[in-house]
């Protein structure tokens, strides 16, 4: 009994000691920007550095992109959960619309000029920033150099038309469905793949004042037909209709297909899962209207309904994460994403062949309109894109299918915009 009392006394002293030291603990939540274990280890290492500097404890929690729409709202509405969070650039205005994110004065983070414009724009809702740009990403064409060589293809495709020609050579050598992998109905991010095609065909998502859908234009229809055509021509496997993006990535990383449109984070996946894969990257092929790229990435947001102490701690942590040396380490050595601060690009790493391609594509990349309703709009488009693919699988796809569903999506989007 005596022993127990002594033990309890020691324990309570430790607890009291910790509390009275005024140590703040905050939670950081991010998505899988790198293979989970490496990501966790990196965050823990930096959290230890940060604690040594500030005395603040940071606990890291990784969630999947699919969970973003459930976990973040839960945290900001209940006031319980992560203090600093990663949000996708396309979702930042949406979460800002809830009123649960801290308003950000960019002066505290080095001023607006310090950041890449596309990322900065994505933090804003009605002129106010609700996030700090963290990293940027864009998708380019990855190709398997060995499969290209075996099929006698010397240069990677520069246009979407060339991609079909190259693809036909590849399937002659390697068999049907081996030229490229594309995402299908299981991909929540299906729209990103088609958006690149839409823009390079000269189309737009919405009009300039965001009041009307324009994606059902001729360019949109042509882009959709091209996408389905990749499967129909046998360049992509019919199984792609059921793929999500990780399945696309896996098909390329395993060496099953010769091409895939993927992001910079996949470089880390290749290094981790199949380091011997012979591959290179090239800018997204050009369409009739030139080249286009998707501007994505992530910002760091701070939950507003927390104690002042926690909010300040979270702000310090975000400042810490966006410091050049930390950000460069995170993007260069861990995630292969592109930093969202301009000064980080001075690092020679971004002059390597692969990163130069990403940097160049990012230069002309287009971002989705920053709207609170964007999540809903995106879903309406994805839903109808799913319908096109489903009709294809069912054998009901014809000349008019793409137009029919894009019109339907446009009608639904117009309703969302004008409600």
């Amino acid at each position, binding site marked *: 009994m005596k022993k127990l009392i002594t033990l309890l006394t020691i324990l309570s002293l430790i607890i009291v000691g910790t509390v009275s030291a005024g140590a703040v603990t905050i939670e950081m939540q991010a998505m899988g920007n790198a293979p989970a274990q490496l990501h966790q280890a990196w965050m823990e290492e930096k959290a230890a550095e940060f604690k040594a500097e500030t005395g603040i404890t940071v606990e890291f929690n990784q969630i999947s992109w699919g969970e973003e729409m459930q976990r973040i709202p839960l945290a900001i509405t209940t006031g319980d959960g992560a203090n600093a969070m990663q949000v996708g650039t396309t979702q930042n205005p949406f979460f800002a619309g*809830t009123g649960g994110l801290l308003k950000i004065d960019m002066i505290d983070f080095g001023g607006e000029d310090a950041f890449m414009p596309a990322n900065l724009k994505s933090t804003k809702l009605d002129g106010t920033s609700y996030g700090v740009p963290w990293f940027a990403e864009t998708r380019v064409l990855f190709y398997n150099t060995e499969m290209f060589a075996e099929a006698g293809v010397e240069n990677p495709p520069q246009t979407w038309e060339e991609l079909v020609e190259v693809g036909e050579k590849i399937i002659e050598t390697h068999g049907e*469905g081996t030229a490229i992998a594309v995402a299908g*109905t299981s991909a929540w991010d299906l729209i990103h793949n088609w958006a690149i095609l839409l823009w390079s065909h000269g189309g737009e998502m919405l009009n300039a004042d965001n009041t009307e859908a324009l994606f059902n234009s001729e360019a949109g229809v042509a882009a959709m037909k091209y996408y389905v055509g990749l499967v129909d021509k046998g360049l992509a496997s*019919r199984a792609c*209709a059921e793929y999500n993006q990780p399945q696309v990535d896996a098909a390329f990383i395993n060496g099953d297909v010769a091409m895939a449109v993927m992001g910079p984070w996949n470089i880390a996946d290749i290094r981790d899962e199949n380091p011997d894969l012979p591959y290179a990257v090239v800018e997204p092929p050009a369409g009739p209207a030139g080249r286009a790229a998707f501007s994505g990435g992530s910002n760091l947001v701070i939950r507003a309904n927390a104690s002042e102490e926690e909010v300040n701690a979270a702000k310090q942590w975000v400042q810490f994460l966006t410091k050049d040396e930390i950000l460069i380490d995170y993007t260069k050595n861990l995630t292969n994403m592109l930093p969202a601060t301009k000064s980080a690009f001075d690092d020679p790493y971004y002059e390597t062949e692969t990163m130069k391609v990403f940097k160049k594509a990012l230069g002309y990349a287009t971002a989705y309109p920053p709207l609170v309703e964007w999540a809903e709009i995106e*879903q309406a488009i994805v*839903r109808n894109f*799913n319908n096109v693919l489903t009709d294809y*699988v069912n054998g009901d796809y014809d000349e008019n299918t793409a137009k029919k569903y894009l019109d339907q999506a446009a009608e639904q989007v117009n309703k969302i915009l004008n409600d």
Partner: protein
Amino acid sequence: MSKKGLAYFLILPALLALLFVHVIPMIWGIVISFLDLNVRNIINWQSAPFVKLQNYMLVFKPGTVIFTGFWRSVINITKFGLITIISGYFIGLGVALLLNKDFPGRTIMRGLILLPFVTPDTVAFSFWRFIFRSRIGILNDMLKSLGIIQDNIIWLVGDRSLYAVAIASIWKGWPLVALMLLAALQQIPQQLYDAAKIDGANAWQRFKYVTFPYLKPVTKTLIIFNILWNFNAFNQFRVMLSENPGRQADIPALFIMRQAFNHFKYGQGAALSIVLLLIMLVFTGIYFYVFRVKSDS
């Protein structure tokens, strides 16, 4: 403390838990269904405007995305329920009848049949997703090696997707049916069969007049549980077909989840849930009514 007092005292914790876990959220759900609770007012939910029946009207106004999507999902789940409940019941019944016979290894078999039932949903349905995968799934491989198909079939998209999920759900559901029916079968006194035999009843007649009447009460419970479980089906569709299974296999639970949590239209989501609840009540009501009349006669 009187006997009754003690009884109340003992069930109090359970009642309190029920109140907080079920009753209050349900009442709150009903309240929300009359509010325009959305992305812009979720933080100050107290100030969400009262919109009377507007959220409910959307479910009954033809031509809207909600009307089309929701009723399509209800039709899909009804189809799914009919297939899984009926097939699951007959498979379970067949296995129960077999296991009721005396043979060596019967006890082990009784344990083994529970495996699908005790496998966690996510694990089991992930496996089924792999089985049905078009390019690398073993189902297509098997069908091809048997010469039944030439090209890979796509199971998880379009018309076939609902059936793929139904097959997986039947596999997961029949063991419980078998177990419960087996328990009922073992209650039947052997004398009844002997008497029936003496009266010259054949095997079918013995099943119809002796076995089945004993299985009726448990069948009634099983079917009502299955109707409720199947109408609320979520895991198998979410795991096998993703959050957005497409129009051939969309189901109410996923449709409502997307509406409420991905679009942040909590008011609409709550109204849809309540409409679903009413539909289920109607189904169970009809079922109980039909069953009651039959058993009386």
